[in-house]
């Protein structure tokens, strides 16, 4: 059964047709790589799927943790951002951590925003930092960590709320091979342990090899091999 399903998505920026009748289906707990050439519409697809960007046409359906079907494309901004905060986690290439906060505070932040007490939030955050093998940088600010450490902190922050879907756009794009692979290993292991699905945008085949299957985007059209029929 699908957790997230997009159909007939189109999105234009002025004269650029970033997406044209794209579709994708994500099942609970699976890791799906979204691949394709630069400018083909991968990030736009991810943004539409995650409710960050409303498409011009098409629908996105999500089955929430109560099992009810919710149409993202019919929600208002407030409802969508509430859904993103409670059900989704995000990891981008860089620039997602708050520079003024320590790494521990960054990871605790989503829990604090949901009203959790500081002590509990920081305990959970510390656990996640340890699982991603970066508890050593808990009290440092993001600017004082290496790229690989920063990405692990960002993954801890994405996972700390127990999301059902992690959206990751080129999460290893700024890392060397060894660090990139370590980050992918930790991300997919943690996601599998918690049952979160991962939508992973990448143009690196070795990164995509951590997925269960791939969807190829070309010229704004996605080719979801498994669900093509």
């Amino acid at each position, binding site marked *: 059964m699908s957790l997230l399903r997009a159909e007939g998505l189109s999105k234009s920026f002025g004269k650029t047709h970033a997406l044209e009748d794209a579709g994708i289906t994500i099942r609970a707990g699976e890791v799906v790589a979204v691949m394709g050439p630069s400018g083909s519409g991968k990030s736009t697809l991810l943004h539409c799927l995650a409710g960050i960007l409303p498409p011009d046409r098409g629908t996105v359906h999500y089955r929430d943790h109560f099992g009810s079907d919710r149409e993202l494309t019919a929600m208002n901004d407030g409802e969508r951002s509430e859904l993103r905060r409670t059900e989704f986690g995000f990891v981008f290439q860089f620039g997602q951590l708050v520079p003024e906060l320590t790494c521990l505070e960054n990871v605790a932040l989503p829990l604090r925003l949901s009203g959790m007490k500081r002590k509990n939030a920081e305990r959970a955050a510390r656990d996640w930092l340890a699982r991603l093998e970066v508890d050593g940088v808990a009290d440092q600010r993001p600017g004082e960590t290496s790229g690989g450490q920063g990405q692990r902190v960002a993954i801890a922050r994405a996972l700390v709320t127990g999301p059902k879907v992690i959206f990751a756009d080129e999460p290893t794009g700024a890392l060397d091979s060894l660090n990139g692979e370590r980050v992918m*290993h930790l991300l997919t292991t943690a996601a599998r342990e918690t049952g979160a699905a991962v939508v992973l945008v990448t143009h690196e*085949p*070795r990164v*995509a*090899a*951590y997925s*269960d299957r*791939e969807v*190829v985007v070309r010229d704004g059209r996605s080719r979801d*091999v498994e669900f093509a029929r």
Partner: protein
Amino acid sequence: MSIGHALLGLLEGGPRHGYDLKRAYDERFGQDRPLHYGQVYSTLSRLLKNGLVTEAGVEAGDGPERKRYAITDAGVTDVERWLSTPEKPEPYLQNTLYAKVVLALLSGRSATEVLDTQRAAHLTTMRELTRRKADGDLADQLICDFALFHLEADLRWLELTAARVDQLAAEVMR
């Protein structure tokens, strides 16, 4: 892989039986392709004939497995030469994939389909290697990484070609 050189290299650690050598080889280098006994003994008799190894005693109850082999000075020199000579970079210019793409275009079939099918097969193998790497020790990781980087190079070529398929069609049909 030059099996002779690999066996010589293993013998530098001390004399061994043929059976021992096979086991040591398989353990370190034979992940996908363990040696046959026949290969081991034919290689050893060639090394023996060329003076790169000598027999270092035969245990009671003969038969070829009972012989121990030791590396000679000439053998050590040979290993040294092998290690210091670079392997010829393999340019893989006889590419079946390229031929398939061109023939698909010439016959009016879909070259994109050929490329997509290949891409999926490559990624499936890359996933298997990635899983094997996660479960393995450092030796497994390095061996799988070698294969992964090569498959990745193929995949990059598949992508680049997919992006130029229209252009290639125009040239091929001219």
